[in-house]
């Protein structure tokens, strides 16, 4: 006989399990026991079934699977004796739940037990039903439970009431059947039945609006009376907790009153007195009393408005706030958040206490208090509140800093009264917790700084000072570097000093030093280093004396493994070395960033990019350092002199290029460019040449050839690839093209020249149509005779197509006093592979004599 047979008493098994020193031992013991139990089940052992199930339940609690015991439960429930039934039901509740199908098999047994004569057994059945019944069981057995609501034994009545709660939760349609019995229950004297009745009523009202109406009309007064009796009742030792009779019943009644009073003025009126009585008379030195007060305050807040009561409630909450017990304070903070919507004024009075709670040592209280403070901020109290919060930022925990920073930044942004305050506060936040500051926040800061032109000097000096003391916070470094780059001259010249500032002397090399240290910092990430590089470029233009040194710094990154840095280093180096003439235009002061556009953009979650002009005639390429996460730089911002409408999405490009303009202004704009070099740049990018409409379509192709773009930015960026850039800029050296209306880089040629005639060709191409060239031919008479009947003919090889327009005239005055022009259109089907060639024949009359000139043009530019 197996020594571990069912003969083992439960106590011994528990001892054996506890004696195991390792998990493996325990598993072995459990396995043996389970095996024995399974054997006993198979043998249908009656005697030890009870004990076996107990063992099984213990094993289940340890965490082992015990499904094989489920049928045992059923068998036990079906047994006649109370002990067996009891353990059967207990096993049922522990090992099974409503989702198992086995549960259905129990329905019949439970039904019989509900009708049993032994009320304890009825109690067992009700208990099991109330804890785990499924929807079908609920439907089947609801009539029995209803009947039991009126049973003579109060124990059964209260169990039936709670069981009904579960039934109506599972099957809300049955709710109507319970309305009448519950009304009777509410008049009970027995506390147990009363409290269960109240709970059932509360749930009924939640589930069924008719029930709610019914109880509201019929039972509110009765309930108020019951509560009053309870509050005024004398000492009852049975229910007394901390000097209050049955606080649980108090609380449940208050909850039910809340449900009944919400949304109904009459019901709320009838409750006012008792609520006031509870609120004032309840002692609050013990937890029980506080629990009642809490419930009372909740009820007052939820029912229809009564000014006096609400004030009372908020005062109670204020008292709670200063209680030493953390639980009470937590609960109060919770409630105050709801109270703000009801009566913000009253809550404001407790602001100081709430602020104290932000600094509490308990994390949950801090969180709640912070949220509450955030809701309390308005224009009048924003300054002192922010000061407190920022001061606290210095000493707060790391895990709390993130939350706190986010909230503080949001407050500063929403409510800042003036720009200088905003900048000050943001500086403090950045210094303390810059690493927690999100990108949008410091982007917004940059926008504001650029807008506050009178504060530029102040800002850049403050940032310089901050950066000197602490360079740990990434965002601070970025903003500082950007500002120093932009406003470095103000920094050095101490321009725009405000009275509150201490004088500070910063030399140019100091400024360069600090930017250099930002680059060299090991912890600087890519964005910071990129921003620092462009800041150095700007400084090299503003501080020409440091140009050499800056160039040396920049050149160090020529070999950087990071593409972005390498590219920037090379490009900037080239600008510094070879292109001083455009450098200052490139890195000119940025125009004011438009806050509205940025606000809108942030709302539509586009990356913060480009600047829009604000009315001044922007000459040309402006260094636009983009303060965004994407490490790209707009080298060529071609915004024009009409302020771009605040648009979003696809319109950006047109804003950028100012191309969205009526042709008149546009040509104005382009013709305003004074420098010859910049002219070419514009032309090179075919802004001025062809009609605006074409440009809208075509410029993206030429311009958006940057690398590692975000898709959105791709259409906006005007970053030319390095080689293009070099070509464009190198094109500045040689002679600029003669007629301003030239196309890209096709110099005109003298196609044919003889002693008496010269033919000049000017080329232009339609962008987007590289195979077709428009040629404008211009004939000049070099002799002193008039040419008449002038006819020009041309022939081209097969891979070309030629189209001749009519000439402007057929008589050519002598000695170059006039010209004949004629337009040709050539389409090269082998564009790029074979250059153009053309044979000419020119016929004219001189003094009545026919002259014929022929020739071949071989000097077409190569890539026509």
């Amino acid at each position: 006989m197996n020594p571990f047979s069912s003969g083992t008493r439960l106590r011994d098994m528990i001892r054996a399990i506890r004696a195991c020193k390792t998990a493996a031992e325990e598993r072995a013991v459990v396995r043996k026991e389970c095996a024995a139990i399974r054997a006993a089940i198979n043998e249908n052992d009656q005697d030890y079934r009870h004990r076996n199930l107990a063992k099984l339940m213990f094993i289940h609690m340890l965490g082992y699977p015990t499904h094989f015991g489920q049928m045992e439960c059923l068998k036990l429930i079906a047994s006649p004796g109370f002990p067996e039934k009891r353990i059967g039901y207990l096993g049922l509740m522990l090992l099974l739940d409503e989702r198992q199908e086995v549960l259905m098999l129990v329905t019949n047994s439970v039904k019989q037990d509900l009708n049993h004569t032994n009320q304890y057994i009825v109690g067992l059945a009700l208990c099991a039903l109330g804890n785990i019944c499924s929807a079908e069981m609920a439907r089947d057995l609801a009539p029995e439970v209803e009947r039991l609501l009126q049973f003579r034994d109060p124990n059964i009545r209260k169990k039936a009431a709670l069981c009904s709660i579960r039934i109506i939760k599972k099957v809300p349609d049955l709710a109507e059947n319970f309305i009448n019995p519950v009304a009777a229950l509410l008049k009970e004297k027995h506390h147990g039945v009363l409290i269960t009745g109240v709970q059932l009523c509360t749930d009924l009202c939640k589930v069924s609006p008719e029930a709610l109406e019914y109880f509201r009309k019929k039972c509110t007064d009765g309930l108020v009376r019951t509560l009053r009796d309870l509050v005024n009742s004398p000492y009852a030792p049975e229910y007394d907790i901390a000097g209050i009779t049955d606080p649980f019943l108090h609380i449940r009644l208050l909850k039910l009153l809340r449900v009944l009073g919400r949304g109904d003025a009459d019901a709320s009126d009838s409750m006012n007195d008792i609520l006031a009585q509870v609120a004032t008379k309840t002692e609050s030195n013990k937890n029980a009393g506080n629990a009642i007060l809490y419930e009372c305050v909740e009820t007052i807040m939820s029912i229809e408005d009564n000014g006096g009561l609400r004030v009372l409630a908020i005062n109670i909450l204020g008292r709670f706030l200063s209680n030493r017990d953390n639980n009470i304070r937590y609960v109060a903070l919770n409630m105050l958040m709801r109270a703000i919507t009801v009566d913000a004024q009253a809550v404001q009075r407790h602001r100081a206490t709430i602020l104290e709670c932000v600094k509490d040592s308990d994390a949950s209280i801090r969180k709640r208090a912070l949220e509450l403070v955030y809701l309390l901020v308005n224009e009048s109290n924003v300054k002192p509140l922010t000061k407190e919060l920022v001061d606290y930022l210095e000493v707060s925990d790391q895990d709390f800093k993130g939350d706190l920073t986010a909230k503080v930044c949001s407050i500063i942004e929403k409510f800042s009264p003036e720009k200088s305050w905003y900048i000050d506060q943001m500086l403090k936040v950045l210094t303390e917790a810059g690493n927690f500051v999100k990108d949008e926040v410091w982007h917004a800061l940059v926008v504001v700084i650029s807008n506050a032109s009178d504060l530029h000097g102040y800002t850049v000096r403050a940032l310089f000072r901050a950066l000197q003391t602490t360079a740990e916070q990434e965002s601070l470094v970025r903003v500082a570097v950007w500002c120093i780059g932009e406003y470095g001259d103000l920094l050095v010249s101490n321009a725009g000093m405000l009275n509150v500032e201490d004088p500070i002397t910063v030399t140019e090399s100091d400024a360069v030093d600090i930017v250099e240290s930002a680059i060299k910092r090991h912890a600087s990430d890519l964005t910071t280093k990129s921003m620092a590089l462009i800041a150095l470029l700007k400084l090299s233009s503003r501080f020409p004396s440091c140009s050499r040194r800056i160039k040396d710094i920049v050149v160090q990154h020529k070999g950087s493994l990071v593409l972005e840095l390498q590219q920037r280093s090379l490009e900037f180096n080239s600008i510094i070395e070879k292109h001083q003439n455009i450098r200052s235009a490139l890195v000119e002061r940025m125009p004011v960033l438009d806050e509205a556009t940025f606000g809108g953009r942030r709302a539509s979650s586009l990356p913060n990019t480009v600047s829009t002009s604000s009315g001044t005639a922007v000459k040309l390429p402006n260094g636009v350092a983009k303060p965004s996460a994407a490490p790209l730089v707009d080298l060529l911002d071609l915004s024009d002199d009409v302020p771009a409408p605040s648009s979003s999405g696809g319109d950006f490009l047109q804003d950028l290029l100012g191309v969205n303009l009526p042709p008149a202004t546009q040509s104005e704009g382009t013709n305003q460019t004074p420098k010859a070099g910049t002219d070419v740049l514009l032309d090179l990018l075919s802004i001025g040449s062809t009609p605006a409409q074409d440009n809208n379509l075509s410029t993206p192709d030429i311009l958006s050839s940057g690398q590692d773009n975000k898709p959105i930015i791709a259409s906006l960026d005007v970053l030319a690839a390095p080689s293009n850039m070099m070509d464009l800029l190198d094109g500045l050296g040689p002679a600029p093209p003669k007629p301003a209306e030239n196309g890209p880089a096709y110099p005109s040629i003298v196609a044919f020249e003889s002693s008496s005639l010269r033919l000049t060709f000017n080329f232009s191409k339609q962008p987007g149509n590289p195979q077709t060239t428009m040629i404008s031919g211009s004939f000049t008479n070099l002799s002193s005779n008039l040419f008449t009947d002038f006819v020009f003919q041309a022939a081209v090889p097969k891979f070309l197509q030629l189209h001749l327009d009519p000439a402007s005239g057929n008589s050519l005055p002598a000695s170059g006093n006039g010209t004949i022009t004629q337009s040709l259109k050539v389409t090269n089907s082998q564009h790029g592979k074979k250059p153009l060639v053309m044979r000419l024949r020119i016929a004219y009359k001189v003094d009545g004599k026919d002259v014929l000139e022929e020739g071949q043009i071989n000097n077409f530019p190569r890539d026509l």
Partner: protein
Amino acid sequence: MIRFILLQNRQGKTRLAKYYVPLEDSEKHKVEYEVHRLVVNRDPKFTNFVEFRTHKVIYRRYAGLFFSLCVDITDNELAYLECIHLFVEILDHFFSNVCELDLVFNFHKVLVYLILDEFILAGELQETSKRAIIERMGELEKLE
């Protein structure tokens, strides 16, 4: 409504678990583990309420045992604190100075579960009088 009641010791062993909502066994274990982790690391000075998933857990430590109640978000926490205390007082009465081992060994008398079933049913309070519960337990014992 109470969703579940857990009694756990400091090592995380569950001494009593009663669920009023249906959960798979594996989910139950996960829940027990998580609640234990939440509760065991909290400083005694902190509040007795923690947010747990979409509900809250109200807990109290008595000697080596953590009594945890998981309730709906809208429930009155202070009331449930009282509830826990009442339960402990009843247990105390039965075992005179109840300790963890009592709960473990007397599990077989399923006394603890019986008490709980007389105190809370379907996730709601059933009886608020200590005396009534004790009387009832006496009657039930006689039937065994």
